[in-house]
């Protein structure tokens, strides 16, 4: 019962359509879990329900012992859940630095008067924030593009910045929504290494949605399989690869593992 993330009987209904139906799952602290399933299985819908973007119709979600019921997305983020998006959502007019710093606003206070008058407390806070930023940029090999406007970055780098921004919000748990989508094999290899480091070096718990099966089988410690909104299997990569229900679900699409 002491799971970091505990999802119980969650359903999400759009009109009459059950996009997610009675899903229960748990993620332990420090784990690297994958959520897979054919297109339209409800994976992103489940992410959206867990992060408050589009709350679940039924069921309960507990994070770190606290219920996420009726929490707004920004409150969920403050509690320590970060995410990336399927279609990259960066602050495109801002530089990489500013993107990261926009994700840090809940980590410190800055009062109106001292920031307007540029009082020493303001300068101190800014130095602190700049320190955090430099550290993340260095760790994620982004120092060279720190001052670049993100709209001008290549696709692969934008994905990396989005992960860096999620890290900047100082989360315990990070949801990655198809991080390898549209990447070439080299970029995917870099990404695989990066996700591992999120777990080992940053001590983050990672939940990822991914279609690239080699990446999933390579990385995940545990896998949940979703089909038509329902959970059809759970297990280690080896177990999932030999699960009949999973193989049937993917038939036609084919599991390239």
């Amino acid at each position, binding site marked *: 019962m002491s799971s970091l993330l505990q999802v119980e009987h969650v359903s999400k209904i759009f009109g009459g359509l059950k996009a997610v139906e009675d899903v229960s799952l748990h993620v332990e602290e420090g784990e690297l879990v994958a959520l897979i399933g054919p297109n339209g299985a409800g994976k*992103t819908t489940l992410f*959206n329900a867990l992060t408050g*973007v*589009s709350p679940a119709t039924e069921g309960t979600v507990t994070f770190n012992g606290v219920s996420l019921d009726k929490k707004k997305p920004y409150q969920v983020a403050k509690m320590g859940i970060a995410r990336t*998006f*399927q279609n990259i959502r960066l602050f495109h007019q801002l530089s990489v630095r500013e993107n990261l710093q926009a994700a840090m606003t809940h980590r410190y206070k800055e009062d109106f008067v001292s920031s307007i008058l540029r009082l020493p407390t303001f300068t101190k806070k800014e130095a602190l924030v700049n320190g955090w930023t430099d550290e993340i940029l260095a760790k994620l090999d982004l120092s060279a593009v720190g001052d670049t406007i993100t709209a001008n970055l290549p696709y692969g780098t934008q994905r990396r910045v989005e992960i860096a921004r999620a890290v900047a919000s100082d989360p315990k748990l990070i949801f990655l929504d198809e991080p390898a989508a549209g990447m070439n094999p080299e970029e995917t290899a870099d990404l695989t290494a990066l996700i591992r480091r999120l777990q080992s070096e940053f001590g983050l718990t990672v939940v990822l949605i991914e279609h690239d099966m080699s990446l999933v089988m390579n990385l995940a410690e545990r896998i949940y399989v979703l089909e038509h909104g329902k959970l059809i299997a759970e297990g280690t990569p080896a177990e999932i690869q030999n699960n009949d229900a999973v193989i049937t679900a993917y038939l036609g699409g084919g599991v390239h593992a």
Partner: protein
Amino acid sequence: MHTAMQQIINGLSLGSIYALLALGYTMVYGIIKLINFAHGDVYMLGAFWGYFIINKYHVDFIVALLSAMIVTAFAGMLIEYLAYRPLRNSPRITALITAIGVSYFLENGMSYLFGANTRNFPQVVQQHNYTAFGISISNIQLLILVTAIILMVLLQLIIQKTKMGTAMRAVAVDQEAAALVGINPDHVISFTFGLGSALAGAAGVLIGLYYNSIDPLMGMTPGIKAFVAAVVGGIGSVPGAAIGGFLIGLLETGVQAIGLSAYKDAAVYVVLILILIVLPAGLLGKNVKEKV
């Protein structure tokens, strides 16, 4: 009861003018997401054309109305071609400022050429009042209502039944996809401006008959009210614009009737804000949620 009925009739006449204008706003917005600030001034052009042609050639109401619609249709298409088309891929706020520029240009250009003074619209239709059950309605009010309803039905037929109408709806949903299936968006947008402007021109002639006076700045306030009507009805929705127009017309006359005429504009905006708070996309607008 009688006064209420009387006010409803007055409100419907005024509302049909707003509705005709609101249709132009909503069609243009639906297709290129531009608040066409100059739309109210196209309505002014229609009124001036009616004034000119009736005084000069002594034509009857139908000729004045139809010719005003043709002239304003071309004016609308010309404005689109010169001022808005070059900005098709610019930030929307830039197009908005350009539309404001066009509006200033038309208002002040007309003032410069013909003077800023108010002039009497020639009474091409003799006014008669019909009274039944203690409610009085003038033939001009009837004319406005009937003309407006005929035009709205025609518009609905064009949008729903013709090839061009289908193309308009297609471009409104997805311009690129429409282009891919062989629709030329420029033609469709131009047609939309023509159609909307023709309705505004008709409204201009009708208001000239109704209020009997026109001036170069006459389009400003009704233009804004009609846009509010389009937003209340759900911008992009053609039936919504018609409903919004009638609603605003009724509301204004209603507030005036209970002796609060000083607050009639405020009442319109209060209703606008209340409706937007409850229904952020207006009465018939589709509330599109962004996909994450």
